[in-house]
């Protein structure tokens, strides 16, 4: 008889910490309202559309060109951030210098700053008569209204992802580990490549992946500097915006669903991959 009785797993034992039911309930409600409901709405928009219509919208040449621009921009931004984010995290964790706290706080600025503000600032700075633009243009480096500007804006808004994921892992790596490697005769480069980098690798890949995903969806910071020339410097988020302005809600949703699917898949892949690594570092197989 007892085998048939229904029992929820969390009812089997008395909890010491109160409020489990209430807090979980509120959390789930919140997640549903804020995350799931809009996502469902997005998919709902697509229901009036046939598969061929959907396919036609998402493979429209101008949209495909925007995928290429977005992905290559985000990829360049992610690689730049991986290198400089790692360096920044290293400097912030391993050295003491005046102004360290300030630099640390500054790392969060791209999160806190409205992306449109960042976009306008960058556009002003790098336009042909801006401070940086004036210097770079004669050298033949055109930043604004080109993919370089897009990558730059994406890198600006997503650098905290790398710094903030690598930093705690680096703090967790005791200085003794480098000392051990050096006492065993390893040159600096060898110690870094064989001892420090493998330890940071999962965090670095995760941070870079998050930065990449974030860059895929970046809008505010990019559109001011990108120039938005069709087939050349239009990003996918802008295509969604354009569709919306034309009151083509279904078209906008179709493109948005692609961005959403790619982002979710990447996040899932990063999490699975990272889980494997972390299990090894902490024992269980």
């Amino acid at each position, binding site marked *: 008889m007892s085998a048939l009785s229904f029992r929820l797993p969390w009812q089997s034992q008395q909890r010491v910490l109160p409020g489990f039911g209430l807090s979980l309930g509120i959390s789930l409600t919140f997640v549903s309202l804020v995350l799931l409901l809009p996502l469902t709405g997005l998919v709902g928009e697509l229901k009036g559309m046939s598969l061929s219509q959907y396919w036609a919208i998402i493979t429209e040449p101008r949209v495909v060109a925007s995928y290429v621009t977005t992905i290559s921009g985000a990829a360049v931004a992610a690689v730049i951030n991986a290198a400089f984010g790692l360096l920044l995290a290293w400097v912030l964790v391993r050295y003491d210098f005046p102004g360290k706290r300030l630099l640390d706080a500054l790392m969060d600025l791209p999160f806190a700053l409205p992306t449109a503000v960042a976009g306008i600032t960058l556009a002003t700075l790098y336009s042909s008569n801006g401070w940086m633009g004036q210097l770079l243009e004669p050298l033949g480096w055109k930043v604004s209204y080109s993919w370089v500007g897009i990558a730059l804006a994406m890198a600006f808004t997503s650098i905290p992802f790398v710094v903030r994921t690598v930093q705690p892992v680096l703090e967790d790596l005791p200085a003794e580990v480098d000392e051990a490697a050096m*006492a*065993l005769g390893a040159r600096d480069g060898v110690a870094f490549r064989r*001892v420090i980098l493998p330890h940071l690798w999962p965090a670095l890949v995760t941070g870079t992946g998050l930065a990449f995903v974030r860059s895929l969806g970046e809008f505010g910071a990019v559109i001011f500097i990108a120039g938005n020339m069709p087939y050349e410097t239009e990003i996918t988020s802008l295509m969604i915006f354009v569709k919306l302005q034309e009151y083509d809600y279904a078209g906008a949703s179709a493109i948005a669903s692609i961005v959403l699917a790619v982002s979710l898949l990447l996040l899932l892949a990063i999490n699975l991959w990272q889980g494997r690594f972390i299990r*090894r570092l902490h*024992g269980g197989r």
Partner: protein
Amino acid sequence: MSIRLENIQKHFGRSQALTPTNLHIDNGELIGLLGPSGSGKTTLLRIIAGLESPDAEVGPRILFGERDVTRVHVRDRRIGFVFQHYALFRHMSVFDNVAFGLTVLPRRSRPSSGEIRAQVYRLLEMVQLEHLAARYPAQLSGGQQQRVSLARALALKPEVLLLDEPFGALDAKVRQDLRRWLRHLHDELGFTSVFVTHDQEEALELSDRVVVMSNGRIEQVDTPDQLYRNPANRFVFEFLGDVNHMEGEVREGVLTCGDAKLHVELPEGHQEILLRPHEVTLSTSADEIAHLPAIVTSVVPVGAEIRVELTAEWMDQPWLATVRHQEASTLGLSRGKKVYARPLSWHHYPQGTSAAAQGAAQPA
């Protein structure tokens, strides 16, 4: 390989971690650096290793045998270093950890992978961990990790092995085993070892000679036996075991402190005597030498002896006395019983000097 240290001094910012220090360690010796935290023992060890550099202005010199290594980087000093928290490479298997030193050798002196394999297994066999070669550090116990770390440090056959509180993070039983095992390894392989510890028992048990340090200074360097019997000063005496204090005025050869009186041969004035727990006996009555009334507050059997804690108004801190089981039952020791302590002998360190005086309180 012998180690000679001359004028080793270290400041961290404005605080002085080591006052200028000289030390000579003979070839093949096992030396314990003993001291409380902040005594400079770890700093001294790290300077020997080359992980810290001594202050340059006092002309420091570090010699390994005839080789001057003062300005030699840690990676070229050819030492083995064992860290308190093992510092194993967590992303590498046990095998790869031990092989690390061999695999980072410059290409022309690097052994072939077959030789590395054979050598690593030889080392793992020595630390009795060859069956765990494929495991990751996180899957090992603390004692096993420390053995891996030792095997790793020994892979390059260093002539100097330095250990920073190597057993500090392990539990008592494992620590005991590893100590015995380190002693054995040291005697068998014949390297020179220096280890840091704050545990006086560990230092006395394991070392050929112990360097006792406090406040960035070497207080005494001696064999464990000499150290215990002839402590150079009050600090060493107090650090090497439990100590009972009695402080008071000496007048006409009697040290008085509250209602406690003891005949001593000390100059007139304010004096303090120190005694070890085994130098205290207990009786039910006072005699003409000592009148030291006290109340028993705890009676704890510790192995072959019974440890008795005593309090009285004249004591600043409770006294400890160790008595035999038989004695304890004759006296009928129990909590709350009033007894009289009688020193068998005592120690006296005059203020501001390192000379020691000892006295024996034999019945007249």
